[in-house]
């Protein structure tokens, strides 16, 4: 009678199948046409007719597909966590101001190099500096949010403070843009488009570690998350340590969203839309079911978006952030129109 994960076994098998298909599709398509047989040969260590094909698959497309999978899954999880923690269907990983923090870090690095010169300019030389700047930015915002969490009981206040951080960083970025030259500005804008490609295997390892830690924290909070669906007072009456739970959930979100933004830039809408899409098909609010489900759905959606973004058979690549917004926004509108109400 009581539904458990077992009830949803077929759903999970279908999702895993879809994930495999989109993953292979993503790797097979790109600006260079590679026959599907050669793709498999490259993936499974066989011989390819052209060495460049093997290189494109193993060193470029495979890391990109893995990044898409992790970024999609991770952002979707942090969206789910935020929606339940704030009990607000519009919450996403970026409401905490994490992406604003990352943007500020990167803006200070790139644009600040023009304005302040010297020190920042030298930093730019390193390939890792963008990643470090954005991670540092997210982390500082996280510290501020955590400090607020300890002082203020009201979760809605945290939400508002996240939004305020967003406004402040937006303003600082605008000021920096005004004073910087066209070349630097373009570099910053390209970062803000988001990019799944050009990841080193080293970077992917760090991404996987962030993803693993975030997911584990989320998994261990799932029972508390379920009780939070009733509201804070009910959750407390069920024996939940509210403060501890809030800190763990915010930490998990920050590690997931912060880490992903650091490597892939800000990617919009996945965190907001995927939990809603998932709830459409998994008619449950149980986080032990929803958690693996949003990972799979997020991975599938971002792989699809990336497949579209790389405009197969042409030499152009569209910014991934634009594609996720183009697909994500109509999906949210469609859900709203269909159900007349956005529930979480």
């Amino acid at each position, binding site marked *: 009678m*009581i*539904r458990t994960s077992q009830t949803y076994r077929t759903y999970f098998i279908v999702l895993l199948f879809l994930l495999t298909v989109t993953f292979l599709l993503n790797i097979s398509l790109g600006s260079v046409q590679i026959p599907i047989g050669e793709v498999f040969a490259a993936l499974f260590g066989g011989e390819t007719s052209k060495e460049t094909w093997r290189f494109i698959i193993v060193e470029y497309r495979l890391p990109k597909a893995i990044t898409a999978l992790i970024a999609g899954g991770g952002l979707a999880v942090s969206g789910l966590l935020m929606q339940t923690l704030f009990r607000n269907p519009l919450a996403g990983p970026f409401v905490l101001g994490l992406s604003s923090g990352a943007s500020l870090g990167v803006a200070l690095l790139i644009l600040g190099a023009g304005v302040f010169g010297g020190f920042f300019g030298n930093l730019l030389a390193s390939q890792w500096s963008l990643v470090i700047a954005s991670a540092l930015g997210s982390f500082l915002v996280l510290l501020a949010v955590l400090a607020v969490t300890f002082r203020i009981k009201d979760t809605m206040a945290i939400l508002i403070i996240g939004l305020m951080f967003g406004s402040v960083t937006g303003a600082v970025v605008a000021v920096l843009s005004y004073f910087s030259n066209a070349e630097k500005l373009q570099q910053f804008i390209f970062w803000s488009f988001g990019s799944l490609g050009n990841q080193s295997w080293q970077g992917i390892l760090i991404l996987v570690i962030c993803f693993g830690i975030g997911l584990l924290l989320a998994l261990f909070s799932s029972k508390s998350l379920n009780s939070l*669906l009733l509201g804070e007072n009910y959750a407390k009456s069920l024996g939940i340590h509210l403060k501890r739970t809030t800190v763990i959930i915010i930490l998990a979100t920050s590690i997931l969203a912060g880490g992903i933004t650091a490597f892939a830039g800000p990617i919009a809408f996945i965190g907001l839309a995927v939990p809603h899409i998932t709830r459409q098909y998994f008619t449950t609010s149980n986080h032990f079911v929803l958690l693996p489900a949003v990972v799979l759905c997020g991975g599938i959606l971002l792989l699809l978006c990336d497949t579209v973004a790389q405009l197969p058979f042409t030499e152009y690549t569209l910014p991934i952030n634009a594609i996720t917004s183009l697909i994500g926004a109509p999906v949210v509108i469609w859900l709203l129109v269909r159900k007349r109400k956005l529930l*979480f």
Partner: protein
Amino acid sequence: MASEEKHIILEANHLATGYQSKRKSTVISEHINFRIEKGTLVGLAGANGIGKSTLLRTLAGMQPALSGTMKLDGTYIEDFTPLQLATKLSIVLTEPPASKNMSVEEFISLGRQPYTNWMGSLTDDDITAITNAMNATDTLKLANRRCYELSDGQLQRVAIARALAQDTPLIILDEPTTHLDLYHRAYILKLLKKLAKETQKTILFSTHEIDLAIQLSDAMLVMTPHAIHFDTPCRLIKSGTFNTLFPEDTIGFDATTGRFSIKN
């Protein structure tokens, strides 16, 4: 009136409730004394703003008492860990569940959280407790409905079922009959009466349905501007407590019918 062999579930001695801030403490009500027995239905009555909700929140451990002591099942309330308290006391609040997307079954199952493992897996015992709670509140046929599809009356029954599933000796309900029509108000209060008798749980509820509460409660806690009285409804009527509940020039209490009427 409490004979010594009766099992006392909830006890307050010289309790004062209110809000404490760094600079000062605001007392809402004080000199609260009562002893509530096992298996009784107790109504809490009083005018708006007199501190019913504050008292219930204090008793439920949601806010600290300003002074005095509270004992739940023989132990001081502040000595319980949150998890222990969750097995002694369950609540039904005026607020609806934050997520209305939950199915009724999921909502009621959450009542078992204090007993389940870290994954919240339900054992056979848990499922029995949930099924019993659903049977007692007549919510079994709603099991697969979503909370947003329910009427106010159905939602209140589901909320009570969740508290029952939590299987605690004391259930506290804050105004369980608001937003309900006369039939559902009577239905909910009769249900509470039946539950107190059959399950031997102690049920404390605040209400503005004083006429109904007088007819159904085993004892009543009446908060008037001057004092807080705890006794059986009969004795409270005899002592004229209900006359002091509201300003006497507007509303009067008729002791023979047990009803309030507007004075012209």
